């Protein structure tokens, strides 16, 4: 019966679960969906970290391959997403394990596709940056 509520009315389902939890009525919980939702909470944290990495790489590509179009706006995006990464790490220090080159391999196809869509340029097939450059390379309009 609970299961159908999850499909029929997500908001009410969540309310109902919170009530059951508060009353300690564990046997009535829709455990399967509840586990999924709680897992999603952690996945969401990881996904926003990866999404920041993707945005940084996307803008580094534009920065490096369209030197004559470098702008404060691209620089701003890179700075903002680096700051966001720090906020996410404050909430969840264990996310640090995703700040590795393998994560770049994962997000690169999308970053590259986004940059291609905006510029029409051909970019390398594998990520030309390592994690240290993505996080720390100085991005300045003066250089």
């Amino acid at each position, binding site marked *: 019966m609970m299961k159908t509520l999850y499909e029929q*009315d997500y*908001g*009410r389902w969540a309310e109902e679960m*919170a009530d059951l*939890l508060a009353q300690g009525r564990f046997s009535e919980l829709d*455990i399967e969906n509840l586990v999924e939702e709680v*897992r999603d909470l952690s996945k969401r944290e990881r996904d926003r970290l990866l999404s920041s990495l993707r945005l940084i790489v996307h803008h580094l590509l534009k920065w490096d391959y369209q030197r004559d179009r470098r702008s404060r706006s691209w620089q701003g995006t890179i700075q903002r997403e680096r700051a966001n990464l720090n906020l996410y790490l404050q909430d969840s220090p*264990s996310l640090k394990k995703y700040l590795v080159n393998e994560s770049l391999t994962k997000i690169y196809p999308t970053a590259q596709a986004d940059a291609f869509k905006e510029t029409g340029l051909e970019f390398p097939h594998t990520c030309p940056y390592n994690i240290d450059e993505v996080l720390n390379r100085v991005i300045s309009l003066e250089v």
Partner: protein
Amino acid sequence: MTAAYQQDFYSWAYDQAQLLREKKFDQVDWEHLIEEVEDLGRSEYRALVSALEQLTLHLLKWQYQQALRSPSWRHSINKQRIKIERILEDNPGLKNHLDEAITQGYKYGRKGAIQETFLEDKVFPMVCPYSWSELIDDQFFPNSYP
């Protein structure tokens, strides 16, 4: 030892899911878990209010700045209507809270319209001038003011 809620949210959520799966109810961090699950439900209501805010903002701009009407405004209006439809389909119970959601959404939609149009505050009605059936009617685009 499981991760603390304040110290590491990612690990905390991961651990709680694991404990629930294994039905180790005595080890679950109830206080925070209940908060988070309540929040799941509330976030649906917040999404509805936010869609209503964007919708009324663009309807007001449409109505009060006829000269600037653009396909992008029409697109924004259509997009928010689809969003509202989807949220209500997933959460039919929210239909009992429509009046409240419209009042809240309109309050900020109106504020946004004042900022974006540079028109005077008093130009825009204090109470949402659109009925619910107008708000969700695909064909409804308000006529110019007055």
